[in-house]
């Protein structure tokens, strides 16, 4: 036979074997309905490709925001290189693919009845549910964070949106000679290279406008863990004396009155405070019962279908997934396509491709004319039930102008692919 059935049976999720036959019957009787939660790089892409690859599938996309704020490029706003308008993307094209947009928040899932409940009290039935909610922050692990955030003095700006603009304004209002503290958690979390890009672009702003100012990075990890040589070379060359990176320095406490940030080792007085807390899969994942890794933080998935191994008919995409894949826009978009392709096969009574491949490319800017990439290909191995990193992947050692042009191009093309 032309199929490695042993492997297929091994990786097929709880819902797959049971689901193919009924779904086939359903597909003949009517149109299968997929509800997607979250219109970001994962959810919007999944909704769009489901409709493009099989117009027989009905797709409802639940998203609370009227428009999308892109995390990629949001550091460029914080560094003063771009405006908020540049990172806002419209959802206006998505209904043109036949996607039903529901502006609401998914708050509950009845996995037995296969119904999603929304904040406005709607109940929406699904044949398959795709959760792509992004992360939520474990702010309770940092004493004083919630109070500081409520007072507008402690920002994460790790979801693009109002906090992106607030952080930019605080940096603009900061006097020359001030100290900007960035606290970042150890991986896994959203966009591991992001704090280092943020430090680079704020350093550029300080160098040009407030040259006596400093950036202190309190890093929960042991080193500049993503694109390390590239960032370190850029900081030394472009911003000598501005960025001080302090590893093994997880932030544990913040006092927004005294503006003291406390780590496992020291107290630092700050003028502007930006702390990225540890993260976990979005709340709807807990509501659906799929946030089931050993720490109860991320969502394990079947690598072929992205279905939860414990809750049938519920699939998870993007930053919420428990895996060795980077939590990046690129990976979310790519996972969405693999999930969409698998769902199309399953709804049509066929077995999905057992050997999906994920590509991950992420660019970070180090100035307003230099960027550098990291890229890796990961291939799913059904016997190991894991995505295996292929040899040769990794980050560039230096940032340069050619990669800055490619970085700009990456934004335009992923936005067109996801929302266009």
């Amino acid at each position: 036979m032309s199929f490695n059935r042993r492997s297929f049976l091994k990786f097929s999720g709880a819902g797959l074997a049971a689901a193919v036959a009924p779904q086939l019957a359903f597909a003949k009787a009517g149109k299968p309905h997929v509800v997607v939660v979250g219109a970001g790089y994962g959810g919007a892409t999944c909704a769009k490709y489901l409709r493009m690859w099989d117009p027989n599938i009905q797709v409802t996309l639940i998203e609370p925001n009227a428009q999308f704020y892109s995390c990629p490029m949001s550091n460029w706003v914080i560094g003063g290189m771009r405006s908020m308008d540049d990172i806002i993307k419209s959802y206006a094209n998505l209904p043109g693919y036949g996607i039903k947009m529901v502006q609401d928040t998914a708050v509950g899932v009845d996995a037995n009845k296969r119904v999603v409940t929304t904040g406005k009290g709607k109940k929406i039935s699904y044949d398959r549910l795709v959760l792509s909610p992004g992360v939520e922050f474990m702010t309770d692990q940092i004493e004083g964070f919630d109070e500081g955030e409520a007072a507008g003095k402690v920002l994460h700006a790790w979801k693009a949106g109002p906090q992106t603009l607030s952080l930019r304004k605080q940096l603009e209002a900061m006097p020359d000679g001030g100290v900007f503290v960035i606290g970042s958690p150890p991986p896994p979390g959203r966009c591991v290279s992001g704090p280092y890009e943020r430090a680079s672009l704020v350093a550029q702003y300080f160098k040009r406008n407030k040259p006596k100012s400093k950036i202190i990075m309190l890093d929960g990890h042991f080193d500049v863990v993503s694109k390390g040589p590239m960032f370190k070379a850029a900081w030394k060359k472009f911003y000598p004396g501005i960025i001080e990176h302090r590893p093994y320095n997880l932030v544990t406490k913040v006092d927004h009155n005294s503006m003291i940030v406390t780590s496992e080792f020291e107290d630092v007085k700050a003028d502007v405070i930006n702390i990225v807390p540890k993260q976990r899969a979005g709340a709807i994942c807990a509501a659906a019962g799929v946030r089931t890794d050993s720490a109860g933080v991320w969502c394990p998935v079947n690598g072929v279908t992205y279905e939860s191994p414990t809750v049938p008919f519920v699939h998870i995409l993007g930053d919420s997934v428990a895996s060795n894949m980077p939590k990046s826009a690129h990976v979310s978009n790519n996972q969405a396509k693999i999930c969409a392709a698998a769902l199309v096969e399953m709804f049509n009574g066929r077995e999905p491709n057992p050997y999906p491949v994920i590509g991950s490319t992420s660019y970070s800017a180090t100035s307003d004319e230099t960027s550098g990439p990291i890229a890796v290909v990961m291939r799913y191995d059904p016997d190991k039930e894991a995505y295996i990193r292929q040899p040769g992947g990794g980050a560039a050692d230096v940032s340069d102008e050619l990669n800055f042009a490619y970085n700009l191009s990456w934004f335009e093309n992923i936005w067109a692919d996801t929302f266009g």
Partner: protein
Amino acid sequence: MTTKYLFACAAGTALILSALPSLATDAPLVAAKSKPCLIAGWEQSAHTCVIHTKTIAATCFICHGPNGKSTGAVPSLAGQDKEYLAAAMRDFKSGKRDSTVMKKYALGYSDSEYDDLAAFFAAIK
């Protein structure tokens, strides 16, 4: 059986094309691929091969634009010569051609995947 499905798929795609904007079509793939293939060393049905190529091509869309039509500095792949595209991947892999990220990608795919991706993008007008 397989051939019948492929024709049905192609016909269906043609119909949808008129209804949806910038549709990623199966038609070029179906034309290019009608035999079983090897993925990760296992022989797969022609249909699975079509799906595999469609999905890995959609990875390329992220940097090279939807359907390989780029609006930025990264080059478009749509409508490029098939032999040129496959040769580019081989040259990225060997290092004969300089690249920023493409060598890392070329190392992650097989020679037959280069050919299938090249055929996919060459067929897009």
